[in-house]
């Protein structure tokens, strides 16, 4: 029996001690009408070996050679040590550190993580993680609404330059609490939030505004201006940031006159594999004043009864297991293991290493764009400064081109037609530090050939 240690004699001895004849008897409180007879749809058990073969075959099918996809999930080099350590049984198979004395390992890791996130975002306090970037944004908005009690509208400005899937998630999660999302248009030329559109809301009751850096097009926003606007109009500013970019870019805690109130984002770039979209982790940090509105776990440093330093979950009274329906959120299980990996990643990279990664991302994308600019009919759509993504316009169908490319083992980028039909045949490309100059050249040649092939067809 896979994973069950009982021998026949164990089972018999245990039944005897319980005082029943057989295991079925233990289920005798279940009304008999509900007893189920077999499970159709579950195949026969496989041995680990059989499954190894199956999974190897399937994963081999999905293996690609070269990818230029980003749009919220980024390919980075993950140092070998990260997962060799994070998957140690003591991290991997533990749970939330409810018994602090038996969980100092995990607790100290989280405390270190909180410090690193606070430092990256330039704010005071970070929680111990949320599910992913999109749900972290939803929680940040709920938090902002709780904080900004001056405002009664529950209206939140979210630029159209925020990833559309994020906006969708925010909607799903916040809709039933009467929060209204107002989408701000972007400037067709720069790809940034339209500041004139923003001005239009200067005299309305707005609870919060989301400021993406960089935005879904890879473009840097005028974060100082927008943050200043928010301060001027008693709007709570929420930064939505890429943590690798923060190795290079000004942290949200320093935007505008004295920083945003809340920052959040997707932690995946910090050492988490792409893995089809998850598990990733959402990070969330804020000014100290708002810590009691923070959702999720929080680890604090304290001392034991002998005065030794130790760590424990703290401010649990905000959480569902204590405050129940009045909790700051319903979150319970979070993304602990990912936090462990990210903490190891940030430690290995250090401030210099992370900055260099960010610089390489920026430069590789710049170089990619210049390769692409050399192709007839291919143009960059926006003029705004970018970090590590860019929007290209193709002279032929993006979908057709991507199909051709993927037959050659290249994932050419993310098509924007369903999200931003107004942009025409637009393609979002991304090059991180993982791309060599040769890769850029190969992609350039492949794109040229694919365009030719499509236009000939």
């Amino acid at each position, binding site marked *: 029996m896979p994973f069950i240690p*009982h021998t026949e004699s164990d089972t018999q001895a245990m039944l005897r001690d319980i005082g029943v004849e057989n295991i079925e008897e233990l289920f005798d*409180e279940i009304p008999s009408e509900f007893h189920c007879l077999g499970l159709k749809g579950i195949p026969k058990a496989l041995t*680990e070996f059989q499954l190894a073969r199956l999974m190897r075959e399937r994963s081999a*099918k999905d293996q690609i050679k070269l990818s230029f996809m980003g749009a919220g999930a980024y390919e980075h080099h993950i140092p070998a040590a990260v997962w060799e350590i994070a998957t140690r049984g003591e991290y991997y198979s533990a749970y939330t550190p409810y018994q602090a004395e038996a969980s100092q390992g995990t607790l100290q890791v989280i405390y270190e993580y909180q410090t690193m996130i606070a430092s990256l975002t330039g704010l005071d306090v970070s929680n111990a993680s949320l599910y992913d970037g999109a749900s972290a944004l939803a929680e940040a908005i709920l938090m902002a609404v709780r904080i900004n009690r001056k405002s009664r509208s529950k209206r939140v400005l979210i630029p159209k330059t925020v990833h559309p899937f994020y906006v969708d998630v925010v909607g799903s999660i916040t809709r039933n609490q009467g929060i209204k999302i107002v989408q701000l248009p972007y400037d067709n030329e720069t790809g940034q939030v339209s500041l004139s559109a923003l001005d239009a809301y200067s005299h309305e009751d707005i609870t919060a505004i989301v400021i993406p850096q960089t935005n879904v097009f890879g473009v840097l926003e005028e974060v100082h201006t927008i943050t200043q606007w928010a301060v001027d109009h008693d709007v709570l500013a929420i930064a939505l940031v890429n943590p690798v970019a923060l190795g290079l870019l000004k942290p949200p805690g320093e935007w505008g006159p004295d920083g945003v109130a809340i920052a959040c984002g997707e932690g995946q770039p910090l050492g988490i594999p792409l893995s089809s979209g998850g598990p990733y982790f959402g990070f969330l940090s804020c000014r100290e004043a708002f810590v009691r509105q923070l959702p999720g776990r929080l680890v604090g440093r304290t*001392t034991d009864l002998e005065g030794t330093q130790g760590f424990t979950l703290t401010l649990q009274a905000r959480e569902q297991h204590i405050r129940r329906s009045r909790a700051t959120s319903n979150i319970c299980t979070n993304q602990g293991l990912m936090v462990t990996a990210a903490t190891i990643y940030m430690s290995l990279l250090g401030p210099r290493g992370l*900055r260099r990664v960010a610089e390489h991302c920026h430069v590789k994308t710049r170089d990619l764009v210049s390769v692409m600019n050399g192709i007839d009919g291919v143009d960059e759509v926006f003029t705004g400064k970018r970090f590590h993504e860019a929007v290209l316009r193709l002279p032929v169908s993006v979908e057709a081109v991507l199909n051709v490319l993927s037959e050659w083992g290249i994932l050419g980028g993310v098509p924007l037609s369903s999200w931003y039909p107004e942009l025409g045949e637009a393609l979002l490309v991304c090059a991180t530090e993982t791309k060599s100059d040769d890769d850029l050249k190969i992609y350039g040649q492949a794109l040229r050939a694919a365009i030719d092939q499509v236009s000939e067809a």
Partner: protein
Amino acid sequence: MEPLIFQLGKKGRTAGAHLLEGVGEMELPNNALRDKLPLLPEVSELDVVRHYTRLSQKNFSIDTHFYPLGSCTMKYNPRACNTFAMLAGFRDRHPLAPEMVSQGFMKCMFELQEMLKAVTGMSAVSLTPMAGAQGELAGVTMIRAYHLDHGDDTRTEIIVPDAAHGTNPATAKMCGCSVRELPTQPDGDVDLVALEALVGPKTAGIMLTNPSTLGVFERNIKAIQEIVHGAGGLLYYDGANLNAILGKVLPGDMGFDVIHINLHKTFSTPHGGGGPGSGAVGVGDTLKPYLPVPFIARQGSNYVWEDSSVHSKSIGRLSAFMGNAGVLLRAYVYMRLLGESGMSRVANYATLNANYLMEKLKSVGFDLAFPSRRASHEFVLTLKRQAKESGVTAMDFSKALLDEGFHAPTAYFPLLIPECLLIEPTETESKETLDQFIAAMAKILEETQRDPQAIKDAPVSTPVRRLDEVRAARQLNVRYSYQDHEGLGEIEDPRSL
């Protein structure tokens, strides 16, 4: 004491194998750039490896200790699940990769959807919720969507038993509902009379776990179902305890309209020191149109994504992509390793272990919260008597267990049982381990009489003694301050790395 990683650091130290070359000038506006480097550790690779290896050794975990944390189903996490989920083709797959180069992954996910339908008796499944609580959110949001869709905007009350997990009321609240608490009877079943009184035209639905978090099977489930459905409400099944009835009873058969499944419990994906989990949801026909997107459908021999463009009534997305895909892969592997016969075997042995432990603990002198009932896969002890007689609380007991080499059970939950321990051994622990645990419990019990102070002083063998929680909350210290550490974090001009 292991120092903080920051304290190991020194200005200018790096793990050089990860330091890329400089890139020269970049054309970015100065005001968009940092003028100080972030305060990350400046350490060597050996520092990192040694620090996090040593820290890991300070954890109890399934791989090192018996971990009978009730409601959490801390069973063995097969290593193969991790190995296969980390195969390069899966690990490196971009979430938006085209379907034509994703069929391997999508086939696994489709089959997982089908298997989850089979074990829940539901007619459709969405894998996207990222933990139990998000599954609850999905479920209650669907319930609300259903009522609204049927023109009923008054149904905003969710009934929740007093024994329920905190996520249930918190979720109801997040979905804009108010919570009506349903009392429990002394025998552990819910109070049907009270339920009758609670339901009405405002009832959106009820959230139930069955077996409940009290470790007993709710025998009146049929009546409950009839009352709630009769009043126009829907039934939500909190699947955290599915391990107890896997392959024995289908929530769908019991009349539930929606369920979330804690894959990190029943299907043994690792809890990871706090996550990740997965809270896939299943629904009956009633709620099918509202399922969160995306999910995977089959078209001929191909697997395709379906989202709101097809499912216009969907409550939408809950995660940027499709949830915790890597966790789902692990659950998939686990289910395939168990196969059909393995499913009910899980429930059989989880239940056997729990009842054995319950009987034995009773026989060595512990009080059961529900002495007349069978245990499900877990059960509740109450130490009320001991607390009264010797002042030794459930907390003290928990700490003393750590010294015996066991992780403590869940303490003080469910809230309605004073000084309680919720004990869940799971099916993967052997009789020998249970017997050792029983011996340890008996020893502590005996010591509460002989030397209660010794128990109150526990733990003594852990890396730290009991921690000052009040101080933690009052003198809030949730990050390292670089002022503690001279010289670090003082890299002035990042442009001159």
